């Protein structure tokens, strides 16, 4: 089948485009949140932090979900050489997701919550997300002709799709009093689900990135190799059993913590492999440096390295005691969701949206600058959070703690660096989004004027 990055505006492209808009707005709320760290009470009356945080978090989580869906729906077709099992299902999913996202955002602005951290919206709104996701699973499972002889990325897509459904449902077990009433029981199940859910969307994204790597280098052998499957199963094993590191300090079952600690250490294998292949990766990266999609894939690999370093350290309970409840956790989340997840989706976007009629090559210079601006500022941003986290940790551990407000005040310089680097990061990312979306918009109008809008059959 021809590559899908042709000029037609397909439903899978719309997932990515809509996701990019969410990312843009989500990051602006992130900046507002950062300002609230250094200017106490900033926008307190209308947009206090309990609104800004979920606005930021939900928007970027939906960006990841939209981006992951768009990537999988496109590459699934390229890989299988067949159109989607059902375009109408994909369109329905897009419609449901888009409307639900907008309702959720409006409810936050109105101060209507009722859910929990990360899914703060009224639990009723989880139902349409659930339905939309089931439609996605149908497309993922039915598009390929056979389950036999499939490469690793296909397995990853299937795993990610199914596990997201499972963990999403699990994260709503709290609606039953049996799970909710006791806070320790409640938090145990809550973090069980969240820990694995992140693993689920990573499966979707890493799967697509393996596919894309192969596509760019013109060699898909890796996806069928033993080592690829070995790494996949290691990842799956961690997705299933390592979530306990979120709750080492919660008085819950000890076996949960011990299992998590032991399982997390298998990540050292993945970590070791990255170091082992460093030289080779660098050489390949140089070869494809001109390729924007590839460059984002490489950047994400560097962020995998940094994030894994923190993650493995935080999986050791003796270290976790120090990092838990501090901004080191935030640094890890930002590194992973921006450096890995977002950069991967941008790589897919470069590949999928390019050539939509105006080639991205014309903007190469600007993309290049924006790429470096984003990466360097993300690194400073990340370091400032690690530094703030170390200081907060020493406050948490000090024998006679100064008052909370005094500690916050002493961290102010680090939050200033955090905010300023965040501003640069935002600029870099918005620049990238703007260039890509402008291109799409142009395409769209050309198509409308040229009356050659396809029936979006892909």
């Amino acid at each position, binding site marked *: 089948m021809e590559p899908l990055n042709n000029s037609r505006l397909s439903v899978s492209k719309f997932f990515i485009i809509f996701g990019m808009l969410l990312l843009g707005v989500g990051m602006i709320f992130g900046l507002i949140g950062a300002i609230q760290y250094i200017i*106490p009470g900033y926008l307190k009356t209308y947009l206090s932090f*309990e609104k800004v945080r979920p606005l930021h978090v939900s928007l970027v989580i939906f960006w990841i979900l939209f981006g992951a869906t768009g990537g999988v729906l496109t590459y699934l077709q390229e890989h299988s050489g067949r159109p989607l099992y059902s375009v109408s299902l994909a369109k329905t999913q897009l419609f449901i997701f888009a409307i639900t996202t907008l309702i959720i955002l409006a409810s936050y602005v109105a101060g209507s919550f009722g859910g929990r951290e990360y899914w703060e919206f009224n639990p009723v709104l989880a139902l349409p997300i659930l339905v939309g996701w089931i439609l996605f699973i149908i497309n993922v499972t039915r598009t390929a002709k056979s389950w036999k002889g499939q490469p690793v990325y296909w397995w990853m897509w299937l795993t990610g799709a199914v596990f997201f459904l499972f963990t999403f449902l699990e994260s709503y077990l709290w609606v039953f009093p049996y799970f909710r009433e006791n*806070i320790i029981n409640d938090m145990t199940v809550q*973090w069980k689900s969240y820990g694995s859910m992140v693993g689920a969307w990573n499966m979707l994204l890493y799967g697509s990135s393996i596919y894309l790597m192969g596509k760019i280098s013109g060699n898909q052998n890796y996806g069928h190799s033993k080592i690829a499957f070995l790494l996949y199963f290691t990842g799956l094993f961690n997705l299933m059993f390592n979530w306990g590191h979120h709750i080492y300090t919660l008085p819950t079952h000890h076996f949960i913590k011990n299992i998590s600690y032991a399982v997390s250490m298998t990540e050292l294998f993945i970590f070791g492999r990255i170091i082992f292949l460093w030289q080779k990766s660098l050489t390949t990266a140089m070869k494809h440096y001109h390729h924007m999609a590839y460059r984002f894939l490489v950047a994400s690999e560097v962020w995998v390295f940094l994030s894994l370093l923190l993650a493995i350290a935080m999986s050791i309970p003796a270290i976790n005691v120090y990092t838990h409840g501090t901004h080191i956790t935030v640094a890890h989340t930002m590194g992973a969701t921006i450096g890995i997840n977002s950069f991967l989706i941008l790589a897919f976007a470069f590949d999928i949206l390019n050539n939509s009629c105006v080639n991205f090559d014309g903007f190469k210079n600007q993309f290049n600058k924006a790429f470096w601006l984003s990466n360097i500022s993300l690194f400073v941003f990340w370091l400032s959070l690690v530094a703030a986290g170390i200081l907060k940790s020493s406050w948490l551990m000090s024998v006679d703690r100064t008052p909370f407000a005094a500690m916050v005040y002493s961290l102010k310089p680090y939050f200033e660096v955090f905010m300023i680097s965040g501003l640069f990061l935002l600029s870099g990312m918005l620049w990238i989004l703007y260039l890509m979306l402008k291109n799409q918009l142009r395409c769209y109008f050309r198509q409308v004027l040229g009356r050659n809008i396809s029936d979006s059959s892909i």
Partner: protein
Amino acid sequence: MAFDKQRFIIAISLLTAFLSYSFYIYSSLPVKDYHISEQSNNGKMVWQKYNCIACHQLYGLGGYLGPDLTNVYGIRDTYYIRSFIQNGTNIMPAFHLSDKETTELISFFKTINETGSSDPRTFTIQPNGTIKQ
């Protein structure tokens, strides 16, 4: 396709292990015998309704703009807590909660305080890297 079969076996084994682990946890949740008052139960829903977790943590989990409130009931008196909730601070909004909601929240804080301590200074580190509470 021996290779394929091998993969399916590994995948099914992992899946079985995961499902067994999950359902074992659901059926034997860490805390079995507990009594939680209606008031405290409602307090938890008030906590969610106003999204207090955006700024506060319980057992170190949540947002970092405000302090961890796991043991606030143990270290502050109820007047203090009540006045914070009703008046807010320069960062924390005054949520204008009803008296009933405030009492329920305080009851929730009382219950969570009884479940343990979130203070990392109370943990001891074992030589194998695990921690004891």
